[in-house]
């Protein structure tokens, strides 16, 4: 049976070097059968969105632990809109993000954002559910 694998870009935007979470999540998504592209560190929003377009991904997952989430998530969202991929590509992610910021970002159009202590099974289930509910 040929199945279309979910393609997902895991990215570390900005200067934040904390890549443990990004790598662990990338490995978990890969082991769950998804096609994972990890950008590595120090990506600008442009680099992230360009990579997403080029790799034709279904999902962009940003990992930010530096406190700069209110800068990077909106910047990526805006570029996604400019490139016309905001409607079909999911922007999700995680890191050290206070609840009220998560609410604000989700209102702006991101998907769910995950905090410390998340079971990777929840992330996998969320992405699969999103994929299945796509029009």
């Amino acid at each position, binding site marked *: 049976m040929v199945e279309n694998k979910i393609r997902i870009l895991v990215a570390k935007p900005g*200067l934040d070097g904390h*890549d443990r979470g990004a790598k*662990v999540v990338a*490995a978990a998504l890969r082991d769950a059968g998804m096609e994972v592209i990890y*950008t590595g560190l120090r990506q600008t929003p442009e680099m992230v969105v360009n990579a997403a377009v080029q790799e034709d991904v279904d999902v962009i997952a940003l990992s930010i632990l530096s*406190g700069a989430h209110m800068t*990077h998530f909106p910047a990526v969202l805006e570029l996604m809109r400019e490139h016309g991929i905001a409607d079909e590509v999911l922007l999700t992610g995680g890191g050290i993000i206070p609840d009220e910021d998560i609410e604000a970002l989700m209102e702006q159009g991101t998907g769910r954002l995950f*905090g*410390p202590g998340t079971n990777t099974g929840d992330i996998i289930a969320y992405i699969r559910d999103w994929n299945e509910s796509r029009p």
Partner: protein
Amino acid sequence: MVNKEQGQGMSGKSDIRKDEERWHEEVKDLAEIRERFITTSSEEIDPLYTPTSLDGFDYLRDLGFPGEYPYTRGVYKNMYRGRMWTMRMFAGFGTAEDTNERFKYLLEHGQTGLSTAFDLPTLYGYDSDAPDSIGEVGRCGVAVSSLEDMEILFDGITLDQVSTSMTINGPAAIVLAFYAAMAEKQGIALDKLSGTTQNDILKEYIAQKEFIFPPAPSMRLITDTVEFCAHDMPRWHPISISGYHIREAGSTAVQELAFTLADGFAYVEDALERGLDIDEFAPRLSFFFNAHNDFFEEIAKYRAARRIYARRMKEKYRAKNPRSLLMRFHTQTAGCSLTAQQPENNIVRVTIQALAGVLGGTQSLHTNSMDETLALPSDKAAKVALRTQQIIAHESGVVNTIDPLAGSYFIESLTDKMESEAEEYFERIEKLGGVIPAIEKGFFQQEIARAAYRYQKEFDSDERVIVGVNRFVEEDEKIEIPILEITEEMHERQVTRLRALRERRDEDGVKEALAEVRRVCSGTENVMPFLIEAAKAYCTLGEIVDVMREVFGTYREPSMF
């Protein structure tokens, strides 16, 4: 501790062995509550340790006395009976004014040393107004773009009365030059300054990833600071060789131990190649370890670290000065062990971890605040963390006797095991061509990523219980602790000040100093005196790093997971 077959009327090893076999036979069918009993590093632990666990143990060879070779029991003869560890809380946020206030607050509450956290732009050598700094100024630490910021940061703090640690790596030589220039301007001689620059680039490539230049020029800058401090700042620790970040990135305790020591020996070898005498610089090398949740594993790690280091420094590098053999280290409790859920529980985690650091013989300690998975610590949370250390120091009684767990069958066999596993790693690193080739091949990064993923899987499957996260969970929990906010106003204040400085300073002096930095970086002279001149001319961090980037190039790591 029973060691010899013929004790005075004590049981011999063969009796013990026989009884032990019988005991194992009797317990082997008893039900156990878990399938495996593992440490934080996923190492399986035996149900019982006895004298038979320590075959070949030799007290004088393996432990000796405190302050004596091989220093397993501690680097000082009287340890905390003579002097308490330094209570050094890592602090930094917003602008220099904000952090200066926090420094004074901590000193007022009995802290005994300062420790500076810089923001990400500073750690990468960008000025606060650089395009790469957007969104990051003052967030993870304090923004320091010039000598002026440094002067505000330490305003009202007497530099020759306090020891200052600065967590800075890629641009460490420049930030050290800012500090030295500030002291000279205040008329304080450099040989009166005490403190530490982290300045450990190898662990940046391995774990924390805040590197700027490629390995070779980075090592050169570090050895320049080592040489400069050996001659001009003899009370300064030019490097703090750090396992902390390796552990935070997900390594096991043994990996933290082995990779950190391997890094340390790489710095030693670089300085020896420069022609420095081992006893000239080794007494000022210092270390920095993590204190994670697994109490005994951590204590064994510190004890093994001291012993491995002393043995190598003596036997391999032929150090003669006893001070060259001492592994002095700072400890910080494990940030990655803290939970965003039920954050008050973190106070308890930190207490256990801090206690391990103290029982492991640390020289200084940072205790994390309960709110660190949510934001930078608030005043209140930082104070509770400091009080935790004070309670351990003054109420728990653990400081009364030195290395109180020595002789425990479990602790000693764990210490031995960690030493031999670290030695195995040294061999593997050697086979890869040394630390830098191993970094370039992604060896450390992959070992750590694998351990981190294994830990996560143990958590995901509920084999590893984290209280409040996958067990004893409170649904719909509302976090009720105050959170420190970094405001846009802080960023604006910083950028305005930096721009005013650029308007005000003598441009010719700046150009001249930067040209000198360029010339020296392209050659082999020690850069430190020239960086101090550039600092005094108020060249900014970003300007100096730009020059260095042009000369040295930049580094990109292989991205793998």
